Every structure is written in structure tokens, then in C-alpha cells.
């Protein structure tokens, strides 16, 4: 086995140390790719070209595999998220309870499609396929916080407060 040199950290941003920590924990094994990308995304908010290249080199996986994985999974995003995120669950239980109407109303107010961020970078609109709180459907995530039995009016108020302030 040739010994590969570890590539230098892309910058002295402390977050790279966290990323490196995940790789170290897994002994720099190739199968740590997805775990490492999770750490990159939770530390930096999204994956970018630079990060994927670094991880690929450190774990000795082909670039094609690293990009293949990064684009295959819904959870990974290559675009930075907005300041706030509204995630509407469109799983079956939520759908039966009117999630499509919530989504339509949110799209109309924000003037964006799901998966996009408003021009001013304030709000990202996302959809989820069931967050597991179906007993309280319809459900949305306001940033990280889960809100159940969502009423359209309350959702719109929340979105408006984000677009008008900060």
C-alpha cells in the first residue's frame, strides 16, 4: 500500500478541522465519503466544488465518485441556503391534509419555486418527503424548528416577517 500524503486543509478556517476530524474518526477510509460530506454540509451550509475536491483527495476516492455522490442524494446541496429556511413537508399524510395548498401559497408569496432562495437571500423554500411527524400533519420546518398542524395564515405571517425584516 502506497502511503498517500494528506492534502493540506483548503484554508485555516476552523471548520476544516471538524471535517478532518470526521475523516480521521473513520481512518480515512473511502467509505467515509458520505459521512464526511454530511459534516461539510452541516459546517458550511452546503457543498462546493472546492470542498468536494478536498474530501475526494483526502479519502482517495475518484472525483467522479465524489461528485456522483454529492449530486445523487437529495440532502446535499451545492447552493448556499438563504438566511432562513421554510421547509414544507409534502409526504402523503401532509398532502392529504393540504400541503399542496400550503406550498402553492408560499410559492406565490415568495415568488420562487421550491429548492430556490429569494433574490435578497433571505428565504429558501424547501420541500421534504416526510419528516416523521405525520401525526401532526400538515407539518413544516421553520429553520430547524418543527411546526405541526400548520395553518396557511400562520405560515404566511412567518414568511412575511422574514421578508420584511432583516
Amino acid at each position, binding site marked *: 500500500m502506497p502511503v498517500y500524503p494528506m492534502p493540506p486543509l483548503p484554508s485555516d478556517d476552523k471548520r476544516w478541522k471538524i471535517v478532518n476530524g470526521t475523516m480521521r474518526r473513520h481512518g480515512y477510509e473511502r*467509505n467515509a465519503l*458520505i459521512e464526511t460530506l454530511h459534516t461539510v454540509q452541516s459546517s458550511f451550509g452546503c457543498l462546493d466544488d472546492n470542498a468536494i475536491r478536498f474530501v475526494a483527495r483526502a479519502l482517495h476516492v475518484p472525483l467522479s465518485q465524489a461528485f456522483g455522490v454529492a449530486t445523487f*442524494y*437529495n440532502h*446535499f446541496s451545492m447552493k448556499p441556503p438563504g438566511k432562513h429556511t421554510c421547509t414544507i413537508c409534502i409526504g*402523503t399524510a401532509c398532502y392529504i391534509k393540504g400541503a399542496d395548498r400550503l406550498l402553492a401559497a408560499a410559492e406565490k408569496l415568495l415568488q420562487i419555486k421550491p429548492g430556490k432562495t429569494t433574490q435578497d437571500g433571505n428565504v429558501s423554500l424547501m420541500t421534504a418527503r416526510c*419528516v416523521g*411527524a405525520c*401525526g401532526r400533519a400538515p407539518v413544516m420546518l421553520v429553520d430547524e424548528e418543527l411546526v*405541526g398542524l400548520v395553518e396557511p395564515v400562520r405560515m404566511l405571517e412567518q414568511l412575511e416577517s422574514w421578508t420584511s425584516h432583516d
Partner: protein
Amino acid sequence: MQIAETVNAEHGKFDHEVNVCVALGCLSQHSDQLKDALTKEAAASGKRCRVRQTGCMGLCAAGPLVLVEPSETLYGGVRAEDAKELIDSLGEQPVERLAVHRENYFERQQHIVLENSGYIDPEKIDEYIGRDGYRALVKVLTEMTPAVVIEQISASGLRGRGGGGYPTGLKWSTVAKSTGAQKYVICNADEGDPGAFMDRSVLESDPQRVIEGMAIAAYAVGATKGYIYVRAEYPLAVSRLTVSLREARRRGFLGTNICGTAFAFDIEIRLGAGAFVCGEETALIASIEGLRGQPRPRPPYPAMSGLFGSPTLINNVETFANVPPILRNGADWYSSIGADKSKGTKVFALTGRIANTGLIEVPMGMTLREIVFDIGGGVPNGGKFKAVQTGGPSGGCIPEEHLDLPVTYDALIGVGSMMGSGGMIVMDDTSCMVNVARFFVEFCMTESCGKCIPCRAGTVQMFQLLTKICDGVATHADLDLLVDLCDVIKNTSLCGLGMTAPNPVLSTLRYFKHEYLEHIEQKHCRAGVCACGSRVMAGEEVTA
């Protein structure tokens, strides 16, 4: 066991236990703050009572829930402001204003997998041990050979709860017989089926039970390493599992020399990344290996050649959760519960247009009518029952005429649906069945991994045809084409996702063909959901 006695002695010190649900549903209602308020009031009251956090109590829609022991009084919709009144009432009359009276909901259930849910703090291993936890593992390691364990599991009649219903004992014995220096046990906690949250709830409410089940399985098949593959959308489950694994290691139930024997086994968590297809076992294995989660043809089955090419046992969360009670109480006990060829209980997530939404566990063989009307309380607000959808995107819709069907693996298949992982979504006349079929096909279309053409291209075509029907611009020829497509996709796809993607279409066509015909011939959607005929203008509020 000594720990059990210490824990139970601890219990004896209190006159009242106040259990607060801190599973996802109630937590979203700030039940953590409620718990703090109750703890404060309890301390101030001077009563011999203890407040503790627990897992899901089932009736999530009525949350936040509080259960008082030993009086077994259940409260719902409790706010922090109610804390004082609630604590004051201990030993007196219950607070009627907050009490939840859903006797039918609870009395008709039988809890095996959920036996500890709502009764223990999921982050305290001692509480699990206090309720007979790890007794089965100790028994297995000290008194039973792997062959005897497998025999017990086979004799119990347990079948996989992840959807397919494959006999668990048979799977274990195949892995046990496979040769390989290294073997793996994987717990499938991907739970990709939208509308289902049984596995999440078990992991959040009683994680040690799954760990114990996995350790027993590992001993039986000869594995030393395990993985729990959890979806990243379940952060609370992940954090409880992390705590629980650490506790189990500290107590010597994981690691080397488990319970003082030569047996060694440890478990690692792997996070999913939001791909439904990763619930499929070969895709899941690829994902743990750090690859794109695409299925591969079987055979070879994972039992022969799975993770890193080694023999691998893969079971669902609920399947593992059934293992400890089976070994504790014996195969005969388990096989006496449930129905012929569908033994034991099943946890269902009851959602949709139903009065009591939440999680239930019932013996298999109970009829759909009992589940929907007796336990679920039927359709609220005077709505009329139309269908119950089971089996998620792989399943189908079951109409009123089959409500007296006993819920077993085979009976559900017989009416064109399936057990699946246990999602049950009740629909009333506000749902359009063509639209529902379109919803599931859209799901399969966006979740198709794209590896094989019938699924990748076929689901897109199905979706377009269904959209045409919904929009009122389809012809009879389109409907014929749709039926042909279903046939092709079902028979030529590589994995279960493609093979079952047509099911929602086929089952709605079987029972609700008239709705398809109304859309085509009269441009009419009787539920007023679709963009044809009598439709309310787009964007306008459709009455809920």
C-alpha cells in the same frame, strides 16, 4: 438482574410518576418547556413525585401528552401554565379539563414493540433494564447456542416489518450458514415511506430495544459489527441513538466480552442522505460503502454477499424491536398472538382524515374496520370514508367494501395492496383517487435512481398520463396506454421501487375506475381537487 432491582427500588420511592412525552410530535409543542415547568412545580409541592421525559404515547395529534402513573391518567394539550394545577391534583381528582378520554383507542391495542414507549426515559439505560431490558441478551449469551436462538425466532413466526414480510428466522439461518471471516448486521432505519413514522418513534422512545435486538441477531448469525442506517431527517432519533450506544457500551452490552462472555459486537451509526431508494437493501449497502445508493441485481443476496462483500443480515427497526420479547417470553407466546402466517403485532401510523391520528400497535388479523373506526375514531367532521391507503408508494388503496378484511400480509396483497412498513392513510371524499395515484407516481418518479429505463422513463410517462387525466384532457386511449405501461414497469424494473410503482395506479383503477372515467368523459372531478370541469379556480381555497 441486580440493576433491575435497584431501578425498581428507586421507583418505590415515589407516589406518582409524571411522564412527559418528548418525542418529535410533542416536542414541536414545546413539551421540553412543559417538562421543566412540571419539574419545578413538583419540587415546590413537596409531594413524593417524579417528573421524567419519555417517548411517544401514540396520540401525537393531541399533544403535548402527559401520563400520570400509577393512576394512568392521560392528559393532552398541556401547557406550561397548567403545570401547577396538574401537580396539585396528584393524589386528588384529575384535572378534567385536560384529561384525554379515548378508551377505545388504547384498550383495543396490544403493545409489544411499544411496551416501554411513554413509560421510560429513552436516554436512560437503567430504565430500560428496569423493565426487563437486556434480560433476553443475557439469557441468550449464557444459556443458548446460536442455533437455538435462530430456532426460536423461526418458531415464533416473526416476519420482516420493513415491507416484504420475509420470514426472519429463515433470513438469520441463511446468514448464519454463509461463510466469511467477517459478518455484519445492519438495521434499516431509513423509513423512506412518507406518512410512516413507526421506526422513528421506536428509535426515539426505546432505542435500547433495537440495540438489544441487533446484539442478539449478531450472536445468532456470527457477526461482530453492526450498522444502523438512519435517515438524516431524523436528527432526534440520531442523537438518542448516539447516547444509547454509549450507555450500552458503558454497561457492557456492546464492545468486547459482552456480559462477561467471549462475545464481541459493536454498532456504528450511518446517516442516510435523503434518497428513498436507499431503503432498498442493496442500495442501502452501497450507501454505507460511500457510493451512490443504487440497487444491484439479486442474487447474490446480502445474506451471501452484502456489505464489503461479506455476509450481511439486514432487518428493519421494528423487526429487531420484536426480538428481545420473543426470547424473553418464548416463541410459543409470540406465535399465539396475531393471525395465521402473520404472527405478533404490527405498529401502524394512522394518519389522514381520521379522528385519532397517531401511532398504534395491534395484533395482526384485526380488521381494517376495527382499526379505522374503533381505534381511529372514524372520519371526523361528518366526512365520509372513502379508502385507506396502506403500504406507501408500493401499496394501494382499499375501499369500504373490504373494510372487514383482517390485516395480514397475505390478505392485503389479495386486495391489491400490501402491508409495507405500516403507514395507513385514511381518505374521505375530499380526496380524488386519480390525484392520489398521481401523487404516488410523482413520488416514485422523483425518487427513481435512474439506473434502469422502465422505471426511470416509465414513471415519467405514467405521471404525464395521469396529469392529462387530472387536467381533463385525456382520452380512453390514454387510459389504455397507462394500463399497458403499468404492466411493463411492474415486470421489467430492477428493484422493488420500479416493480411496485404502478401499484397505486392499479389499485385505484381496480376500485375507483369510475373516477378515472368521470375525469375523461365528463371532465369532472367529484372531489373538486383536479384542474378539470367543476374545479374551483387554481389557488383558491378548497374547503378542508
